[in-house]
């Protein structure tokens, strides 16, 4: 593999997301400009200019027309994907940590951090067809958190929202009533990433407690758990193989005391069922903060604390299943 190195960000990456067809890659970093790339050759298409703080998260609509980003400047912004025009700004009193469109894109969930006297909240807002009619008045507010919420995702035909956060608890919320349906303490420490499998039946959570867990979306039952020996910052599920891609590595604060080999900054592939490590791909000089599989499973992207995004297109001997 000869990966593409994308040096568009000056600060650590926070999240990577492919659109549905997999031709576009969206990246968020702690600098202020979310960026759009071609996933095939890594060419930069544009940057979304308007945020005044670290961009924590993003989500793209199914038809790749709208992008939602959440930033530490206490706002979330809705963008036109192809022109980079800022369509609407949701203003909050605390940093926006997680965003997610609902499946039909009529709704969106936006979480805010604990800040000064405010407690974390997940705001569910209605996304209108016409941006001029957009309002930031939430239709539902999910409260009762004490720690920040790092990931949210809709499931069960938008009746349920799943949240995962710093307290290591994963909760299933009833979107209609705003009550918790189920909750489970899955990790001892902060959950950094949670990604659904493409059919939505199960998901993977990555935590600072060095564990990566495969979780049933309906029951929050832990199906499998892997000990990765190092903090796991991100995990993704391969759409074509029974594989989990894990990115992580030593905490950024301890990086200078170890070599890049000992730090464990490789992207690691683990078999989903046998829980055995299959292999790894090296490259980053610091911990990996974000990983994503392209929807066709033939390529993956990793974003590191070092500010680089690496797009890796798999070789044929990986795709022919020789590594399974």
């Amino acid at each position, binding site marked *: 593999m000869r990966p593409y190195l994308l*040096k568009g960000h000056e600060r650590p990456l926070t999240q990577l997301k492919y659109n549905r067809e997999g031709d576009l890659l969206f990246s968020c970093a702690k600098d202020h400009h979310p960026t759009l*790339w071609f996933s095939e*050759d890594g*060419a930069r298409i544009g940057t979304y200019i308007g945020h005044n703080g670290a961009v924590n998260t993003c989500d793209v609509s199914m038809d790749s027309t709208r992008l939602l980003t959440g930033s530490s400047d206490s706002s979330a912004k809705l963008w036109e994907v192809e022109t980079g025009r800022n369509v609407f700004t949701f203003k909050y009193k605390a940093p926006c940590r997680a965003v997610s469109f609902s499946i039909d894109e009529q709704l969106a969930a936006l979480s805010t951090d604990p800040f000064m006297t405010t407690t974390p909240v997940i705001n569910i807002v209605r996304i209108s067809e016409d941006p001029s009619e957009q309002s930031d008045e939430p239709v539902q507010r999910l409260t009762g958190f004490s720690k920040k919420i790092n990931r949210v995702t809709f499931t069960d035909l938008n009746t349920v929202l799943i949240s995962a956060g710093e307290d290591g608890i994963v909760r299933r919320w009833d979107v209609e009533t705003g009550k918790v349906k189920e909750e489970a303490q899955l990790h001892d420490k902060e959950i950094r990433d949670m990604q659904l499998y493409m059919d939505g039946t199960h998901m993977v959570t990555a935590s600072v407690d060095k564990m990566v867990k495969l979780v049933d979306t309906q029951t929050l039952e832990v199906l499998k758990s892997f000990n990765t020996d190092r903090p796991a910052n991100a995990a993704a599920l391969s759409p074509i193989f029974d594989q989990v891609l894990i990115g992580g590595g030593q905490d950024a604060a301890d990086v200078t005391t170890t070599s890049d080999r000992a730090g464990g900054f490789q992207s690691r592939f683990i078999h989903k069922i046998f829980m055995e490590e299959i*292999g790894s*791909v090296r490259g980053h000089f610091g911990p990996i903060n974000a990983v994503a599989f392209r929807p066709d499973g033939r390529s993956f992207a990793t974003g590191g604390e070092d500010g680089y995004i690496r797009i890796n297109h798999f070789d044929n001997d990986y795709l022919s299943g020789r590594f399974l």
Partner: protein
Amino acid sequence: MAATKIRWGDTLDEDDSLPTNTIIGPDKQGVKIITTYKKNDKGETVKVVTKTRVSRVQRKIFDVAAERKSRLRRFGEATKEQAGDSVTVQQAEDIPFERVQKTRQTTEEKRAEKEDLRSALQGSDKSAVVGSLRDMLYRRRMERQLALARGQIAAPERPPDEDSDASTLPQAGSKPGGYVPPSRRAGATMSDGDSMRRREENSVRVTNLSEDTREDDLRELFSPFGPISRIYIAYDRETGESRGFAFVNFVHREDAARAVAKLDGHGYDNLILRVEFAAPRAERA
């Protein structure tokens, strides 16, 4: 005639137009030959022949994505991008998918395995075991191990590993643990020239190989017979494709002989291998 006047013979030379450039191919193997003619500084005609290999890569993409690719225009910071900014770089280094190696067996595990084998082989009727070649090779190796365990044959030469006793290490040098050339190690009886000749004798030629066969495949196929010193696959200089034959050098001639006996006519990757002792250099010339 005045010296300044240009003679018709010279002008004819000057006007001599270059032969037309030709492009041949790509042929079946994808080799394209481009011939161009140009004048160098001295006015001499130079013929430049460039051979390139053309390969087609077909990729399917969504219509929506293809349409989007032609429609998208740069925006934001990307509009200010210069050609030399190198925001996107393809890494020159090839980054492999590093497969995790199975952890090595401990000495206890190896011993337990040997015991198992001993009891298993005790009652087995050799002629009754009929299986694929792979099974047979495995059985042979195990038999050899068994014979070794009984002390019927001498231990094969092998590099010392951490499992072996320190006392069995070759100690021919003045310093213990210092480098000892193979010819001076304990058990080495032949001179350098002799070993060279022997090595050539142990070379096995493999023909009718499939083009996809790589060194590792051959190693996998031949290593059950015994230690291998070298594997060479002939590649086409122009296309980089395998030419369908290879040489495998064994450390021991007996191993080579067994490999020839067993693998000649063996089906491999839909082709029937031809395995024979390589002719010595003198005969080939």
